[in-house]
């Protein structure tokens, strides 16, 4: 009897060990998150203030990232733009993941006709290319922030649903869920208490991956001129409006592009190095 308790495993500290590249990713993503909140208050100039005498100026002491095509301070514009690029993407991704996970959990735990119906409709949604869908919606409803957020959320819900559902189906087949069913627990309890806590990490990873997609999509839309509308500007629109500086390698066009790339690469590095991750950050089937 005693030796059953003698073989206690050593208490493992539940801590997150993140590799070097993961740490870099975390730092970059963390930096941009802070800038999203604090950017406007530490920006040297207003977003629209025409402070420079020279347009598309190179880097200087006065304008660390140069000036844009109207002579505005690029550093300030990028800091203000973070609000749109990071903030908007964050809200849209949160919405998409919340809807996807809720639907996926429900479909997996409930099964049956509800599952089949949700799966069919959302699968059909996936087959509409995301940029197409966004273009149609924006052209139809105009490009306002709510339209952009709603459209992006709708576009990325099905992918998130797929992942959440397949995870939840696997977890639902585990014995502890069977025990809960045998105990007489309700569907809502099983979803919330038994299944959801066990898919937090994959869902977080998926959230990061989708965040990257959303940033790319939103800046792509802005680059096409159908995203964030002036006078507001996200990083995609900053690239677009300063495109004429490309030939001379003006920081006004390089810097916002670099900002986008640093954010997305940082996020990818972070999620690729999360502890306990199984597969690579690819969609899978």
């Amino acid at each position, binding site marked *: *009897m005693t*030796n*059953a*308790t003698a*073989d*206690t*495993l050593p*208490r*493992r500290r*539940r801590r997150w*060990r993140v590799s070097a590249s993961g740490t870099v990713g975390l730092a970059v993503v963390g930096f941009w998150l802070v800038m999203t909140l604090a950017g406007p208050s530490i920006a040297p100039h207003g977003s629209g203030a025409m402070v420079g005498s020279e347009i598309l100026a190179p880097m200087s002491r006065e304008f660390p990232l140069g000036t844009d095509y109207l002579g505005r301070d690029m550093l300030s514009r990028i800091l203000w733009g973070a609000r749109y690029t990071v903030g908007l993407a964050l809200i849209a991704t949160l919405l998409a993941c919340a809807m996807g996970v809720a639907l996926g959990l429900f479909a997996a735990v409930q099964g049956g006709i509800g599952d089949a119906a949700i799966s069919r409709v959302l699968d059909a949604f996936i087959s509409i290319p995301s940029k197409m869908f966004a273009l149609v919606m924006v052209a139809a409803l105009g490009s306002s922030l709510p339209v952009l957020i709603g459209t992006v959320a709708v576009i990325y819900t099905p992918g998130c649903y797929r992942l959440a559902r397949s995870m939840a189906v696997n977890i639902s087949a*585990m*014995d*502890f869920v*069977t*025990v809960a*069913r*045998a*105990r*007489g*627990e309700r569907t809502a309890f099983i979803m919330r*208490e*038994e299944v959801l*806590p*066990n898919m*937090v990490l994959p869902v977080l990873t998926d959230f990061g991956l989708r965040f990257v997609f959303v940033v790319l999509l939103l800046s792509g839309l802005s680059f096409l001129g159908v995203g964030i509308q002036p006078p507001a500007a996200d990083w995609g629109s900053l690239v677009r409006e300063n495109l004429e500086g490309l030939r001379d390698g003006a920081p006004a066009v390089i810097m916002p592009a670099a900002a986008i790339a640093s954010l997305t690469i940082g996020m990818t590095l972070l999620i690729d190095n999360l502890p306990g991750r199984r597969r690579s950050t690819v969609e899978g089937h």
Partner: protein
Amino acid sequence: MDAVVDVRGLCVSTRDEQGADRLIVKEAEFAVSRNAVLALIGESGSGKTTIAMALMGYARPGCRIAAGSVRVGGTDVLALPPRALADFRGKRVTYIPQSAAAAFNPSRRIMAQVVEGASIHGLMPRAAAEAKAVELFRALSLPEPGSIGRRFPHQVSGGQLQRLMAAMALLSDPELVILDEPTTALDVTTQIEVLRAFKKVVRERGTTAIYVSHDLAVVAQVADRIVVLRDGEIQEQGATDRILVAPQHAYTSSLLQAADPTLRSFRQADRRGDPGPPLLEARDLVAGYGPAGADGRPAAPVLTGISLAIRRGSVLGVVGESGCGKSTLARVVAGLLPAARGRLTLDGEALAPGAASRTRDQLRRIQIVFQTADTALNPARTVARILGRPLDLYHGMAADRRRRRVRELLDMVRLPRHLAERYPDELSGGQKQRVNLARALAAEPDLILCDEVTSSLDTVVGAAVLELLDELRRELGVAYMFISHDLSTVRAICDEVMILYAGRKVESGPRQTMSMRPLHPYTDLLIASVPELRMGWLESVRPAVGEGPGKPRYADAACAFYGRCGLRLEGTCDRRAPETQRLAKGAEILCHRAEQELLAGQAERSRTISAPVTVT
């Protein structure tokens, strides 16, 4: 010295999460002489497989051979460069893994895989290799030796795959064959056939072999010498008969003791199986998957015509091979798989087929405990929370009472109280199974359905859990339905035993009747197949008849056991389904044969069956 294998100071290390090296094999030293079979025995984590793989210069990802030397036939294996090592493996040393079903590539034909080693190493032309393979298939008593190689792995049964693996390993006439738990994943009746085939070819060919196992009784049949391992260290080594009869190390003795459940006496005297109405009664249960047909039978029936009764505070054992429907029976009783037909009553009160339409109190009174404690506990919740949920749900306990009760429950299953704040992956296998049990107890049930609760545990740990179950039954008066593939365990702790075959109850009765003749032919086969802890047992068992385990081919019209039955009646057993008959010993069996005929048929083999099972 004529040693084929000589291992000295072998250390294998693994790197943990903190990046620190930890030795999982410590200074292992042993030798195997020509034509001998050496057994490496130990429980999970003892390092036996790690040592076996190191003999091929192989360490699993994350592990590293840290020190020592391995010589096989004079070659220093650990010094070989990668290319030479590839030439060495599969030619001079071959390997038979635990699960042949997983080790066969699903997308290639069997023959291509069997002769692959020979063709990689250029040992013989393809045609010669195939001819030799067919000869080996025959020697291993595989069905259709000429054509079985053309099949894909999924078209062949597990026991046959295991033998095909042996053919693959023997094809290149290696200096050493390593068998890594080759029969552990098999049913007992299959295991005995595979063991017999292995032993025959190993003896005939004079193969030098290393047999890795956790099962002393199996090892006793095949090995000349035994090395006992624990936590990566050799405890004791010596000739098989010496180890079995006069173990020197305390750990070896404890293994020997745990290996024989009949040695533990679960006494009868205070058994309170009261004679009142049964706690749980089932009548003519039919259950399965798929839509029900016109007669109410599901498209894929798993259980047919099952009736049973469990008295308050008593234990019903349900025994059968994998796929016989024993776990399905637990699911039907728990309401997880609603029965298509039949009636369930709890204390005389009808139980709805599905859990969703049972009352909370009915749900409380029947609890289920699953085999794999790993998946039965929610990894994201602490022990306290796992145990607290039934207390909240069924008893509506407030937080502080719940905390107290969780401590009591941990005491009850003999776990230290501080484990309450742990997560399941911080517990050992035995501890998890105790928590699993405590969760069922938290409901204060009348009946606990135990589905193979000790199968995934090491023998010693499993024996302790069994003891705990028996104590709890006496203390709390809870009844069990104890489901297992292991007849000897069931006989040790159950009051009544029920044998399932292909979804039918072939025999049932008080446990004493399971060691009295006549038996149902299947029960007889099952009992005869349980390895005994003595040398020479394997030779004393008469080979079974029929085409070996597999899908019963005559399931619908005939007796399901017809194909494997040693006492079958042509023209009767393959035409009509048998009826239940009551035997003088007090058991019921499902068989066409009359009691006297069975007795006569089984008396003939009574000489070969060893000492009768002791019943206290």
